């Protein structure tokens, strides 16, 4: 039993639950709650994106597009057409999954920089459609979104949202950890290391890449829908290329192929601009410098780098045991 608790899976999940439960002690005002909710939403996207980038080894520079489709899909269906928010969210999610599947099949045949270009292009096209079709989306000005109501109960206020997003983040992490430890998850990690090696044991590499792509798109879309309802407003800024980059940076900053790393990366890089805002004009420059600096000095990401340091201190002589989670 104790061994089970100490395993990275169960232990990590418990630790995350404890952090989410105790964090409100430090959240002394609404503004802090607001940041915590944003962290949670970004973390959900990153946990999904990490399945694609960290585990399957396929880059995407266009995931803000899926986030945006989720946000605008919910906004348009629920606010313009008066659908029940949950039905709007569900329909949007299914549509995004279908789109990711259709586009993913040809795109994921590409490798490296070509894949980067294709996903970037996809994101930019989604961004441009959203800014141009102002009849539905409100164009550059954005669109107001009704609050999320579930059977008459209306979710409003940072505190309630904190618990909802916290719970959903736990679910997202649990799903991701399950997947990684399943035959499908091992297949993803295998094709990341050697595609030929994976194929010759019967793994359809293309199918698994598309699977990871669709799952990550769904995570992003759901987070987008939630973000739209939470803030009551969507603007194209959240769909822009730069937001895609921020998402990838969160994943890599936290540590690729580390689910908890993705959460840490989202937490740090969502909070950072709030701290940097104090520097006003220097904010953008400092953010760029932090991005460069961490990647140069910790190319493996924060969590794996720290884990390695910790491990090598604890057990100097014995050889490395087990692999990352």
């Amino acid at each position: 039993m104790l061994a089970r608790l100490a395993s990275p899976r169960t232990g990590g999940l418990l630790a995350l639950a404890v952090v989410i439960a105790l964090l409100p002690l430090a959240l002394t005002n609404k503004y802090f709650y607001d940041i915590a909710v944003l962290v949670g939403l970004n973390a959900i996207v990153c946990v999904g994106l990490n399945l694609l980038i960290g585990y399957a080894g396929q880059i995407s520079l266009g995931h803000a597009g899926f986030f945006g489709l989720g946000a605008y899909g919910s906004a348009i269906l629920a606010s313009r057409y008066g659908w029940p928010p949950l039905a709007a969210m569900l329909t949007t999610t299914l549509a995004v999954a279908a789109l990711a599947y259709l586009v993913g099949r040809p795109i994921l045949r590409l490798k490296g920089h070509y894949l980067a270009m294709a996903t970037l292009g996809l994101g930019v096209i989604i961004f441009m459609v959203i800014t141009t079709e102002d009849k539905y989306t409100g164009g550059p000005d954005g669109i107001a979104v009704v609050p999320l109501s579930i059977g008459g109960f209306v979710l409003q206020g940072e505190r309630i949202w904190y618990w909802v997003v916290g719970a959903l983040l736990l679910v997202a992490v649990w799903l991701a950890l399950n997947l990684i430890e399943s035959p499908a998850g091992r297949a993803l990690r295998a094709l990341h290391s050697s595609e030929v090696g994976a194929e010759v044991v019967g793994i359809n590499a293309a199918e698994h890449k598309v699977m990871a792509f669709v799952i990550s798109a769904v995570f992003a879309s759901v987070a987008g829908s939630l973000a739209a309802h939470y803030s009551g407003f969507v603007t194209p800024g959240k769909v822009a290329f730069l937001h895609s980059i921020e998402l990838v940076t969160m994943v890599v900053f936290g540590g690729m192929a580390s689910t908890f790393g993705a959460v840490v990366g989202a937490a740090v890089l969502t909070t950072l601009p709030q701290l940097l805002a104090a520097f006003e004009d220097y904010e953008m420059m400092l953010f760029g410098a932090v991005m460069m600096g961490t990647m140069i000095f910790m190319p493996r990401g924060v969590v794996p780098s720290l884990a390695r340091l910790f491990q090598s201190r604890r057990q100097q002589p014995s050889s490395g045991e087990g692999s990352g989670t």
Partner: protein
Amino acid sequence: MSLLRVEALSKKFGGVNAVEDLSFDIPPGVVYSIIGPNGAGKTTLLNLLTGIYQPSAGRIVFGGHDLTGRAPYEYANHGIARTFQNLQVFFNMSALENVMVGRYMQERCGLAAALLRTPRLARAEHACREEAAELMRYVGLHNYLSAAADAMPYGALKRLEIARALATRPKLMLLDEPAAGLNPTEALELDDLIGSLTGRGVTVVLVEHNMRLVMGVSDHILVLDYGRKLAEGPAATVRNDPKVIEAYLGSGVAAAAEMHR
């Protein structure tokens, strides 16, 4: 009936014929060795037989199914497994997980089950782990049950690939130079391992330069030169074939190898 039938198989790279008009049959239950000088087309042939390369002409029929033009994973689905001369180990995993990946075809489950980790999947995973460990012991890797793949020595990695291939429960197993890079003791241990594979119902195709190993374990030998069949027959016959001796020991060996590079 033959397990694997290769008919008039050819593979061209640019204008060069790496494999040319090659036909042969492999009956079930044997150790079938493919030998030949460097550049004779042996690895190309294995890549054709696993769908990694698509043939320019000819057919590959396995267990009555025409697999020509299929993807590598489909070859695996029909029961062909292999190891690699240039290791294709999953270095981002533990050794045990490498073998567990080999169990993919038996273990695969629906996406929902994977995401929710159903009790049934959890039990299957447990059994999979046990079975992978058993296979590791079988190939002599009991000391590496909890090792990370990237912390293992070369000889152990070669065995790990054999264990992974065995985990797919293959009918036919292709071994690409399993003894290359091993020290003499390790190479000797391979004899028993390869010999025991047929006892598990696995037919073996062995590509190897180590003649002691080949002559010791083979039932049947195919000799390739310049991508063509030079000789074929029971081990004892091939060993005394003057053409084979010429190809291996004759003055043309070095030149022939160079020309095919």
